[in-house]
C-alpha cells in the first residue's frame, strides 16, 4: 500500500478532513441541484424568519431567511463556489508567480536575487491584511480581479519558500554534475530543482488555501471583494452584522461554513505535510 494511503487510513483527522473537503467541493459543484432555492430568490412575505425549529420559523427555510426573504441555507451553499474558486485559483496563481521568482532568485543569485528578495521582504513586512486592503481598490471587484489580488499579494510567501529550498539544493553534487554536463540554467531549474520542491510546495499550497478562504471572507466583510449581490460567505457576514442583534441566524451559518471548510482543509494539510516530508515519517 502506498505510504500516503496507509497514513490516511490510520489518521482519523485526515479522514475527517478529506470528508469535509469533499463535501464542500461537491456542494460547490452541485449547488444548483442541492440548494432548495436560488441564491437571490426570495419573497418579502417570508423575510426575516428564524430557523425552522424556532417559533416563527418556516418549514421550507431550514436555516431561516434574510431581510429580503432569501433562503440562508441556499445562499450558504452557493457561496461555497465563490470561496473555493478564489482560494483555488488564487493559490495557483500565487504559487506560479512565487515559484518563478523564487527559482530565478535562488538559482541565478546576484542582481536578480537582490531585486526579488528585496521586493519579497518588503511585501512580507506589511501586515497581510493591510497590503490587501491597499491593493484591492486598484483592481476593482470582479471575481477575476479578486483572484488576481490574492495571487499577487500571496506570491511572496511562495517565493521565499522556493528561494530558500533552491539555495539549499543548489550546492548539492547532482546539480553541480548537470551543470558540468553543460545544461542551461532553465533546464536545471525546471527539470532538476523544481521536482524536488513539490513536497514543501504542495504543503504550503494547502495551508495557504485555507488562509485564503479566510482572507476572501475578510475582504468581502470590508466590502472590498466581490460585489454585494454575489453570494459569498464574507458578504453574508457583512450583511448579517447589521442585523446581528435582531436576526442572528444571518451571521451564524455563513461563519460556520467558513470555519468547517477551513477546518477540513487544515486537517488535510496536516496529512499532506506528513506524507510529503519524509523526515516526519518516523516522528511518531
Amino acid at each position, binding site marked *: 500500500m502506498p505510504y500516503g494511503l496507509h497514513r490516511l487510513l490510520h489518521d482519523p483527522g485526515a479522514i475527517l478532513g478529506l470528508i469535509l473537503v469533499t463535501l464542500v467541493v461537491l456542494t460547490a459543484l452541485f449547488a444548483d441541484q442541492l440548494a432548495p432555492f436560488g441564491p437571490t430568490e426570495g419573497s418579502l412575505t417570508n423575510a426575516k424568519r428564524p430557523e425552522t425549529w424556532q417559533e416563527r420559523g418556516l418549514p421550507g427555510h431550514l436555516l431561516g431567511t434574510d431581510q429580503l426573504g432569501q433562503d440562508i441555507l441556499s445562499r450558504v451553499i452557493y457561496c461555497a463556489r465563490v470561496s473555493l474558486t478564489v482560494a483555488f485559483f488564487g493559490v495557483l496563481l500565487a504559487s506560479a508567480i512565487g515559484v518563478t521568482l523564487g527559482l530565478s532568485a535562488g538559482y541565478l543569485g546576484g542582481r536578480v536575487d537582490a531585486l526579488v528578495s528585496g521586493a519579497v521582504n*518588503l511585501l512580507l*513586512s*506589511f*501586515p*497581510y*491584511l*493591510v497590503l490587501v*486592503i*491597499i*491593493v484591492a*481598490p*486598484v483592481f476593482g471587484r470582479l471575481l477575476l480581479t479578486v483572484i488576481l489580488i490574492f495571487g499577487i499579494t500571496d506570491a511572496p510567501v511562495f517565493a521565499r519558500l522556493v528561494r530558500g529550498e533552491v539555495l539549499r539544493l543548489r550546492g548539492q553534487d547532482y546539480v553541480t554534475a548537470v551543470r558540468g554536463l553543460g545544461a542551461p540554467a532553465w533546464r536545471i531549474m525546471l527539470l532538476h530543482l523544481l521536482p524536488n520542491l513539490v513536497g514543501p510546495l504542495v504543503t504550503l499550497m494547502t495551508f495557504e488555501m*485555507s488562509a485564503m478562504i*479566510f482572507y476572501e*471572507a*475578510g475582504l468581502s*466583510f*470590508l466590502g472590498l471583494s466581490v460585489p454585494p449581490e454575489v453570494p459569498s460567505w464574507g458578504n453574508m*457576514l457583512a450583511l*448579517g*452584522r447589521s442585523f*446581528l*442583534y435582531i436576526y*442572528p441566524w444571518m*451571521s*451564524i451559518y*455563513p*461563519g460556520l461554513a*467558513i*470555519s*468547517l471548510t*477551513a*477546518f477540513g482543509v*487544515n486537517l488535510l494539510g496536516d496529512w499532506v505535510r506528513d506524507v510529503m516530508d519524509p523526515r516526519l515519517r518516523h516522528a511518531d
Partner: protein
Amino acid sequence: MLVLVFFTVRLTGDPVGLMVARNATPEQREAFRVAHGFDRPLAEQFVGYLGDALRGDLGRSLRLHLPNMELIMQRLPATMELALAALLLSLAIAVPLGIISGVFPGSPLDLLARLIGLAGQTIPSFWLAMILILVFAVNLRLFPTFGRDSLQHLVLPAVALSVASMGQMVRLLRSAVLEITREDYIRTARAKGVSEIVITLRHVTPNALIPLVSVVGVNFTYMLGGSVYIETIFAWPGLGTLLNDAFNDSDFPLVQAITIFIAAFAISLNLLTDIAYDLIDPRARQR
C-alpha cells in the same frame, strides 16, 4: 514601501469627483485640485510627498481637515491598548498550555491545546467577535456590546483578536517542546537524576520560548491588521475604525498615511525582533 503606497492609493480613483459637490462648476473643481496639489504632475506630487513623509509629515485628511499624523496619534492609544491586551492574553494562555501539552502529549490539557491551536486556524476573528457579542453581550449580558469606556469593554474585543495568535503560539510551543524533549541533553539530565520539574523549567522551557520571540513580533503586526475588523465590529475608536472610515469616505491621503504608519511600525518591530533574537539565542549570533 512609500512608493508602493503612493501609487496604489493614487490608482484607486479621483478624489475630486467624490469630494466636490455634484453641481460644482469646472472652475470650482479646478480650484479644489490646485488647493490640494492634485493638479501638479504625478512625479512632482510624489517628490513632495516623499520629502514630507521623511520629515514625519503625512499630509492632511481630505474630509476631517486635520493633519493625518494628529488623527493617527489620537487613535493610536486605543489600538495599542487593544493589541497589547490581546497579545498578553495570548501569551498568558499559550505559554503554560503549550508547554504542558508538549510535556504531556495525550493528556486532557494537550487535547485542549490542540483544540485552541486548531481554532486559531479555523475560526475567523470577525465571526468570533460577532458570536461573542451574541453570547456574552446580548444573551448573558456580561459585557457591553461596543465602545471603549471601561476595562469591561476591552474583554470581548481582546478575546476575539487574540484567538489567531494564541492558536499559533500554542502550536509552535507544543512542537518545540516535543522536539526538545527528544534532545540528548535532556536525556543526559534525566540520567543524572534531575527531577522532571527541574528539567521542564530549567532546560525545556527556556529553549522552547526562543522561537516564540519571533512570533510575538509578527503577531503584533498582524493584530494591527486584524484590528480593522475587530475595532469596526466593536466600535472601538482606534486606527482600524479610522482606516475603515477613511476608506468609505475615499479620504485617500488618510488611507495612505495610516498604511504607511502601520507598515513603518511593522518594519521597526521586525528589526527589534531580530535584535532581540540575537540577544537571546547565542546560536543566532554566530551565523
